């Protein structure tokens, strides 16, 4: 019986297998890098209607986070400040600065400044700011060094894996409550501190949920 296929066909199956393995590896690596929140969300820095600098207000002037985000330690939601909060200073400081024209217009008309929201978890995620900041989880853990940002960008992936990393090992992220709003606080690494942090988790009854319904209520 004559051969149906020429001799070179003998190596085709192995080549096909090698090609499939290579393509699959490339797809897996590509998806892992380009399709996860570490890539898709980190770095998002939309242009805001007003060029508000956190580096100036929070960093240089050392205004406490809670001066503007007033309900962060009292509410599940951390509010974006109203124009009135801005005007509490800017009715006196730089009150004629052209950069603040939008803020003044807003104050007069009553229409809020259309700030662009950057950090947003999906609707099916229940996140409570107050329980985190009141139990020693600093703003910096999820938002990064806001006090060094001229323009705020999305610094952490805020993926479910990111949340669970801390929920599974809270002692590695917890800090003294008085240091929560000190974004530049350096975490000591000695054994005594480690024991102290574990003590916080125990004493404050920090029991971060890992069940589905903990966050997906």
């Amino acid at each position, binding site marked *: *019986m*004559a051969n*149906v*296929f020429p001799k070179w066909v003998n190596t085709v199956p192995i080549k096909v297998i090698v090609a499939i393995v290579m393509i699959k590896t490339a797809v897996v690596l590509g998806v892992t890098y380009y399709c*996860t*929140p*570490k890539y898709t969300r980190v770095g998002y820095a939309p242009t805001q209607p007003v060029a508000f600098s956190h580096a100036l207000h929070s960093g240089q002037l050392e205004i406490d986070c809670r001066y503007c985000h007033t309900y962060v330690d009292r509410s599940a939601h951390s509010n974006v400040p109203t124009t009135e909060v801005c005007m509490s200073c800017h009715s006196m400081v730089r009150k004629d600065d052209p950069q603040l024209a939008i803020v003044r217009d807003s104050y007069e008309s009553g229409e809020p400044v259309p700030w662009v929201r950057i950090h947003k978890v999906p609707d099916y995620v229940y996140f409570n700011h107050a329980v985190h900041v009141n139990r020693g989880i600093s703003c910096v853990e999820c938002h990064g060094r806001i006090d060094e940002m001229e323009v705020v960008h999305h610094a952490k*992936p805020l*993926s*479910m*894996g990111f949340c*669970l*990393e801390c929920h599974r090992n809270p002692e590695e992220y917890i800090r003294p409550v008085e240091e929560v709003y000190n974004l530049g606080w350096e975490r000591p690494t000695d054994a005594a501190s480690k024991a102290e942090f574990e003590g916080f988790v125990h004493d404050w009854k920090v029991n971060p949920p890992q069940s589905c319904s903990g966050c997906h209520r």
Partner: protein
Amino acid sequence: MASSPNDSPLSPTQAAILSKVEPAELVEQPLVANDRDFNWVTNKICRIVETKTPTWWWVCMAMALLTASFTGMGLAYLVSTGVGVWGLANPINWGWAIVNFVFWIGIGHAGTLISAVLCLLKQGWRTSINRAAEAMTIFAVICAGIFPLFHVGRIWFAWWLFPLPNANAIWPQFRSPLEWDVFAVSTYGTVSVLFWYMGMIPDLGVLRDRAVQRLKLGAYEGSSWLTKRMDIFRKYFYAIFAMGWRNAGNHWRNYEMAYLVLAGLSTPLVLSVHTIVSFDFAVAQLPGWHTTIFPPYFVAGAIFSGFGMVLTLMLPLRAVYGLHDLITQRHIDNMCKICLGTGSIVGYAYIMEFFIAWYGANPYESFAFINRGFGQYSWAYYMMFACNVFTPQLFWFKAVRRNAALVWVMSIFINVGMWFERFVITVTSLANDFLPSSWGYYSPTIVDVFTFFGTFGVFSVLFLMFVRFLPLMPIGEVKYVMPQADPHCHSSHQKGEQH
């Protein structure tokens, strides 16, 4: 068999008694009837795929495609709208989808039993039905897989069923029997495909060689332009899938070894797959589900329904292709007897469930079974009982087994009954659980109905494609069980000769 007194160890008294009694000779029916030769077998099986496509095939295919489109439409509507288009609502969140899944997955079991268990038990009669039964298994697994896959609702997250690393940093719940199901069914599907395909390689080689031979002879005058082109297509198609099969001795040696290894691998699957499917129910705490009888009862039911389906498929095929010499009355008898055996086990399990409900003295369990027999779904229970317990008992009678049309009708009853069994188990227990305040009544929606009946179309499309393009029976193995294959047979097939 009667022997003369001279060459038997019988005493004269015994011989005298024997000659008086005249015991009937036990005739073993040959597995290939009418003294056919090897060449006839090859031609018979190969010509099914080589001759012009019969008209009935086109008619059936058109009908099957139309029916299959119901599933397509039902699923498209479900994906675009949400899983609420099925009649699922508290407390019955497992409706037809799970019923249909268990129904289809159960049907597959006959294929694995025939190809693996009967192979290891050296049951020669498996050869002419095993290929089609394996194909049935694979297509049934495909139909079964549709339901849990779409039952997850957001089909694009179905990959979460598999333990893959992900940005959510979570794994599937390995303690859930539903997760075991994923592995059980995917293993089952994979091994079944391997077994089916590997067994087919020698026959694909035969089909390839026959196409090459015809092209070499080139006798295409008078036939339509398509005939030659089809042979060219066949040559390459079968050559690719025959993977260089040359019918050589070492090929056959490796083939037999691989076949045995796969048979060994598949044998535990016959038991494990439906055992794990039964765990979906048995591991739950619900009365009517939480019973240890479930695994054996499910496996018996699966084989029962599977052989029902094999009969449903093989009897029409035997009739249209005139395969009466290959699928003989002996084959049908054996399949009917397996239905009788497994059907009786299932009937025993039904009765035993009631006994245990009474004997266990658990009021919830007792209620669950009284509710099955006399509650809001009792009509389904009677349907199930009539089809599954009474129908197979008719197979005690030779006259019934010899009436192919009647056997076929009864095989349909078995299929219907086994579907109702899954309905009864799934729905009655969920509808009336511990808390009367949460009781409900489940009715399927039109989308449920369309999606389910469409899967018969999906199955038929696949099976018709199989019948048309792939060898229906393992040619080599059919020859192996023929009298001519016995080297001591010589020209005579007469039994009782001393060699």
